[in-house]
């Protein structure tokens, strides 16, 4: 199993969710995040004083999937989240050793 983590633009969340559902993914975890990549942040001006805001609001989407699906899921998210402009985000995967479903105690792939 692999954990797919995607950092995306907040307003792209609905499209990513729909794309994942269409692919057959049945669950995900979403959290608010902030950060910056090559685009850096933006500036804000208060009473003439300009502040550089580096940490831009983002959404983090996390999905645990079977090994064979990992690459496809990445591409599904990528297509749904892409605008082609800077700040679109990042997606990565890491291996997951074990998973348990809390309600039933099922383990491994059965728990997904």
């Amino acid at each position, binding site marked *: 199993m692999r954990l797919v983590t995607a950092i995306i633009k907040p307003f792209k969340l609905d499209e990513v969710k729909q794309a994942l559902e269409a692919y057959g993914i049945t669950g995900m975890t979403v959290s608010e995040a902030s950060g910056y990549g090559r685009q850096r942040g933006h500036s*804000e*001006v*208060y*009473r*003439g004083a300009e*502040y*550089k*805001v580096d940490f831009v609001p983002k959404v983090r989407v996390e999905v645990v999937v079977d090994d064979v699906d990992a690459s496809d899921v990445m591409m599904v998210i990528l297509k749904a989240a892409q605008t082609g402009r800077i700040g679109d985000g990042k997606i990565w995967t890491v291996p997951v050793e074990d998973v348990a479903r809390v309600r039933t105690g099922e383990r491994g792939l059965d728990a997904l």
Partner: protein
Amino acid sequence: MTIDSGDTAWVLASAALVLLMTPGLALFYGGMVRAKSVLNMMMMSFGAMATIGVTWCLWGYSEAFGNSWHGLIGNPFQHFGLSNLLSGDAAIFGYKAAAAGVPAHGGIPALAFVAFQAVFAIITVALISGAIADRAKYSTWLIFTVVWATIVYFPVANWVFAFDGYAAEKGGWIANSLKTIDFAGGTAVHINAGAAGLVLALVLGKRIGFAKDPMRPHNMTMVMLGAALLWFGWFGFNAGSALGANNTAAVAWVNTFAATAAACIGWLATERIRNGHGTSLGAASGIVAGLVAITPACSSVTPLGAVAIGILAGVLCALAVGLKFRFGFDDSLDVVGVHLVGGIIGTLAIGFFASASAPAAVDGVFYGGGFDQLWRQAVGAGAVLVYSFVCTGLIGLALHKTLGFRVDRDAEVSGIDLQEHAETSYDLGSLGGGGGGLVHAGPAMFGSHTTEAHTTEAGTMSSTTTSSPTNHQGASS
């Protein structure tokens, strides 16, 4: 002397309007600081309502409006505890209406005047707090409010607001000898608070990270709401200063409205040209700058004059708020840039824009009146500025050297709300403050617990109480 019910109703309603300005100021200032110090910022205003409210009843009113000693200070014992003022015989005429050539047709009870002037004292003290945001020790601030009002505000109110034969036989020197026009407090309130804010910011020093770290406002909607409440309450401040329900009040109302709208435009236009965007903070700040500038002038100019003063104030104050970065003083929320500069603009503008067609019946430079009124305005403004600057400096230094006027570095970095009030302002996440539980709930015996420290899983956060029987609602919420 008969009491006029209409005048009395208006003055009492105005007093309540002006009291609302102080919570409005708390919101205005509170939204501008960071989330970790919003409660302390608001409590500085609320604390002033408490301390000055009591001080006013004890000796404040008497010191400001008792019989004046050489036009410098009222007799603090004459009406100590508001004595000798409760009977209807103590009614007083609306002098400003009389001075404007409008026949005074009735009086207001002395206590209506007491109420109206009380809330002026409160807001003036509260204004200063914006200059020392995020870093002032709260106990010292409360002591400062009483000392400052006693040494600076009450005497200056006597100078500016106490007319001969009104509340007492002898009034203050600026109002009666110099004859500076300051209808509602450009000098006594705004220049006074602005100068005090400047010197206190110097005494306390810069916040850690000033002009380096981001210190942007944490809640602009609060700032906008605060500006709206200030504008609303300011109609009591300015139109109420007519001390009657009359033409002077109506002129003051419209001028207050016109100048404020113009100043909002002036500030936004300045930002649009300089930074590329008109901001919501700019609109809120422009509103306050316009209100400040028209305060002394609202009885002496035409609505067109008010628009001109408003635009001047909006543009110049928008430029003036940048001075603190150039000169390196941390007037955190721009008490100097808005109140000192706005107060000076408004007070001096009377010398130029005053029109004899307005209730104050004086012509300024632009209306063929020559420079007579202008120098009176300049001397009045300068006198209050210098007196406030020097006295506040001495008071501030004395308190700083003895009690300490500044919280320690750790408290400032982690947030003054937690250190000074054992509270945090926002609980937005579902985890709340996190961990812990209800430790103790009142009512409690005094001294039933002494010191406690709680640790949350997110890190350490210790709240220490010495011997108070307070409610400790959980570890951190």
